[in-house]
């Protein structure tokens, strides 16, 4: 069946090959580049995979090579509100957000998908490395290094039902070769990484500019004040470098254990104290299950992008989820997603609120 497919094209190699594959499969494909900033130069410049005028030109050139119509959609306001402001306010609240995940959830598969469906499209395709199985569940890509199922784990079954990920069955190296073979000059373009809307990669500086200085104490796990900071948002759980606590009472290094926004306190402790086995999470989405699990389930869980998977037991506790890990994990930050897997299949996800 021929589908009308909107291919989101960042200007990078992956989304270009994804669009080419769907067009070649006989679908009626339209390429769309998402303009995420009113001032294209205000986000990353250079060939980093998104957000610049060069990237939109690369995307257009790729669409021309593939032979599909191409448009630019202005998503700047939505992106600013749902991703950038969310990023800042999450840090202000002592959590560590994942903006790529938020962008997939709120921009690509909500704002863009809704508009696409209203305009008569059947599906949205992206260059993500993940698969949607025949029964409509999300699954890891065959290339374990590139697998992006984690940042798509927040999608609902309805969203997945309208999603196409044509690269999930292919290793990255083969995608680059294919791009070159198809005459897509973006074949050599470097992968995008880091946070696309922080131009110089300086997350601390970006947050300081928006949140301003806010001095507070750095407290050891014993309760003793051993240092100070000028903005708790500049710290993430598990961080060791740049704490500025000097020589600690026991002479051992300290790691950030938690950030408490109300008292503006950064709590640090020994490496062992970073290790957690009990995680609480909120706002579960069960895309891989027909109904939320009524009884505790045993499955795998991934706690950060490109992180390892842990075995766990998941208990639903009202709207909350309690996750008991088989073995300890370190540096688990509130605000990150816990994505649950049965083998390679994503069962669902939830947002981490606490870990002990």
């Amino acid at each position, binding site marked *: 069946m021929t589908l009308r497919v909107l291919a989101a094209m960042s200007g990078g190699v992956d989304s270009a090959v994804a669009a080419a594959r769907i067009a070649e499969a006989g679908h009626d494909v339209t390429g769309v580049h998402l*303009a995420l900033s009113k001032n294209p130069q205000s986000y990353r410049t250079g060939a980093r995979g998104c957000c610049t*005028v060069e990237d*939109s030109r690369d995307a*257009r050139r790729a669409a021309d090579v593939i032979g599909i119509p191409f*448009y*630019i959609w*202005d998503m700047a306001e939505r992106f600013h509100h749902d991703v950038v402001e969310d990023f800042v306010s999450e840090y202000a609240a002592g959590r560590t957000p994942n903006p790529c995940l938020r962008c997939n959830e709120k921009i690509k598969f909500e704002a863009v998908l809704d*508009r696409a469906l*209203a*305009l008569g499209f059947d599906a949205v395709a992206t260059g993500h490395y993940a698969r949607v199985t025949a029964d409509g569940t999300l699954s890891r890509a065959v290339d374990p290094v590139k697998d992006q199922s984690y940042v798509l784990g927040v999608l609902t079954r309805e969203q997945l039902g309208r999603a196409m990920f044509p690269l999930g069955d292919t290793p990255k190296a083969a995608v680059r070769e294919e791009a070159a073979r198809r005459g897509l000059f973006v074949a050599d373009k470097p992968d995008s990484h880091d946070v696309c809307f922080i131009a110089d990669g300086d997350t601390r500086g970006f947050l300081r500019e928006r949140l301003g200085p806010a001095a507070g104490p750095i407290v050891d796990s014993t309760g003793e004040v051993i240092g100070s900071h000028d903005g708790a948002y500049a710290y993430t759980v598990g961080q060791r470098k740049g704490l500025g606590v000097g020589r600690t009472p026991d002479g051992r290094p300290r790691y950030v254990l938690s950030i408490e926004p109300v008292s503006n306190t950064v709590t640090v402790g020994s490496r062992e104290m970073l290790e957690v086995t009990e995680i609480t999470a909120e706002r579960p989405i069960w895309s891989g299950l027909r109904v939320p699990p009524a009884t505790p389930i045993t499955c795998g869980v991934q706690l950060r992008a490109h992180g390892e998977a842990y075995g766990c037991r998941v208990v639903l506790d009202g709207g909350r989820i309690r996750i008991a890990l088989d073995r300890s994990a370190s540096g688990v930050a509130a605000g990150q997603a816990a994505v649950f897997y049965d083998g390679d299949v994503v069962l669902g996800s939830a947002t981490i609120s606490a870990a002990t």
Partner: protein
Amino acid sequence: MVYLDHAATTPMLAQAVEAMTAELGQVGNASSLHSSGRRARRIVEESRETIAAALGTRPSEVVFTSGGTEADNLAIKGLYWSRHRADSRRRRVLISAIEHHAVLDPAAWLGESAGAEVTLLDVDQHGRLDPETLRAAIGDDPGGIALISVMWANNEVGTVQPIPELAEIAAGYGIPLHTDAVQAVGKLPISLSGGVDALTVSGHKLGGPLGVGALLLARGVADPVPVLHGGGQERDVRSGTLDTPAIAGFAAAVRFAVEHREATAARLTALRDDLVARVRQAVPDVILNGHPGDRLPGNAHFSFPGCEGDALLMLLDAKGVECSTGSACSAGVAQPSHVLLAMGADAVRARGSLRFSLGHTSTAADVDELVRVIPGVVERARRAGVG
């Protein structure tokens, strides 16, 4: 394919293709002294004479350029520099608020980098500049004005400006008036007379080739300081080897377009009026932008309430109907049109608009097809709503 974007560019006329292709295989730099050069120069000068005759001017008043944008830049920057150089009190540049970016941006650049004071002249709800607005802007300091520029007809909404009246006012004060007539030549009676001192023409908007145009410069106006310095062609105003084939095609197109202007305008006006009436019937709440009567023959510009212009354009494109949301935008991200905003439209109405522009190859079948697909397209775009 239904091509309703002739204001962006229009197919080359057969006469222009013939004149241009006849030259493409020839050798000769029009500045060379030998016989190949003389042959090329003869083509260039005959073309200059053709264009001058068609536009009511003298051959020596035609300066060939690479197109409308270059001609506008030469007029705005060049005349500002030369007038300011002659009298340093002349700092003011008066332009209408609805100019093309080829005029707006050079003027703004002069403001940022050359000490110019740019005044944007307000227009009414139809996009028309009242001559009294110009008179008021000149005020009691005509000696401080370097130049005035008002387009002959607007590229987006098609409104025709009262150029003879404006030129008369400017001439009364001895201030040079430039007009961008890119959209008007071949559609309206145009000539370099009655106080118009500089006039921009573009080849590809009237059935000639891309990449060629001219600035007509009335005798008696101080030559503009060049934008392009080099070999001193075009009486030192615009350097660069002349593009003989393009100039030959350009001249053939100007001649044909001007000779057939009345018949073309009458045909396009009837076709356009039919388009407007039937689109109104199909989409009752549509708003026609621009002057109801005094507009370019082939121009129909609408706002579709509840729709985004981008969505309409994409859906029409998918149905094989090609149009524009305004002037073609290379940057990609749609900004609300400065023309519609200057006419008092809000940003939502400005973003929900489309331009259909008819030209010499347009037929009744094109209008039929647009009218057939537009209700479904508008309904779909409404479902997607406004961002």
